[in-house]
């Protein structure tokens, strides 16, 4: 999955085509370029789904239960994603409609995945 970034010079004579790394590589590389906002939102969405299941299995293994487990899930999930887009990728959150929009991206699905994950280990 390689995406292309096309940049045309002002005189319009030449069109340069610069290949960007794959989404996978950029997702794991700090301060990557995200010319397509949808791509970055997809990265956030899928990492949140993976995180939901991993936290669910982990909480089940520890085991953590009760309201505190749910609260900790919300905090860890939102916190890790927040650190990812502010510190690791350093994106301008305003471009995506603010930190809240990024924080809630795929949250409910992730929460359902988390609960199913805990049921398996419980």
């Amino acid at each position, binding site marked *: 999955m390689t995406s292309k970034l096309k940049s045309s010079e002002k005189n319009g004579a030449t069109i340069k085509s610069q290949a960007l790394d794959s989404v996978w590589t950029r997702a794991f590389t700090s301060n990557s370029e995200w010319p397509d906002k949808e791509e970055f*939102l997809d990265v956030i*969405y899928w990492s949140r*789904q993976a995180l939901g299941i991993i936290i669910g299995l982990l909480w*089940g293994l520890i085991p*953590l239960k009760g309201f505190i487990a749910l609260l900790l899930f919300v905090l860890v999930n939102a916190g890790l994603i927040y650190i990812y887009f502010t510190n690791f990728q350093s994106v301008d959150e305003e471009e*995506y409609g603010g930190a809240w929009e990024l924080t809630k991206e795929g949250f409910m*699905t992730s929460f359902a995945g988390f609960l*199913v994950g805990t*049921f398996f280990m*419980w």
Partner: protein
Amino acid sequence: MWADTLVILFISVCTALLGEGLTWLMVYRTEKYQKLKAEVERQSKRLEKRKEAHGDSLDKQHKKKIEREEEKLKNNNRDLSLVKMKSMFAIGFAFTALLSMFNSIFDGRVVARLPFLPISWIQGLSHRNLPGDDYTECSFIFLYILCTMSIRQNIQKMLGFAPSRTASKQSGSIFGPPPQQFK
């Protein structure tokens, strides 16, 4: 109990795939749906760009243009929902029948144990048709709903059937008016 959880997970994966397959057969592959979807996407993007450019301006002409485009988008979204609706009803009926069949198979069986005590208005669902007062015991229907919540949307996304973010943001949600996105 573990085996039941796995079986229910498998059932929800299968029903999600079946649901998407049927929707593809009846809706997604039709020319009318594809045309309308492309139109909605195009209009949403255009409207978004227009709002970005003239969002704060008080120019009446621009405001009128934006309003006109919003109206068009609303009409197209309504047509898109209508195209979907008929097949959704058919699929809904089929799945209700399927669900009641699974419900009777798992009737009175504890399929999982919840790691928390659910709040009172969820207990009716999580402890449905289960004997006893241990509310950490989970019924089939609750686990099935949770599995479907997490699986269905992911499958839709993977197969590319989920509506684009731009279109869903422009059309708003039940939680309020569409926010100003991608400034």
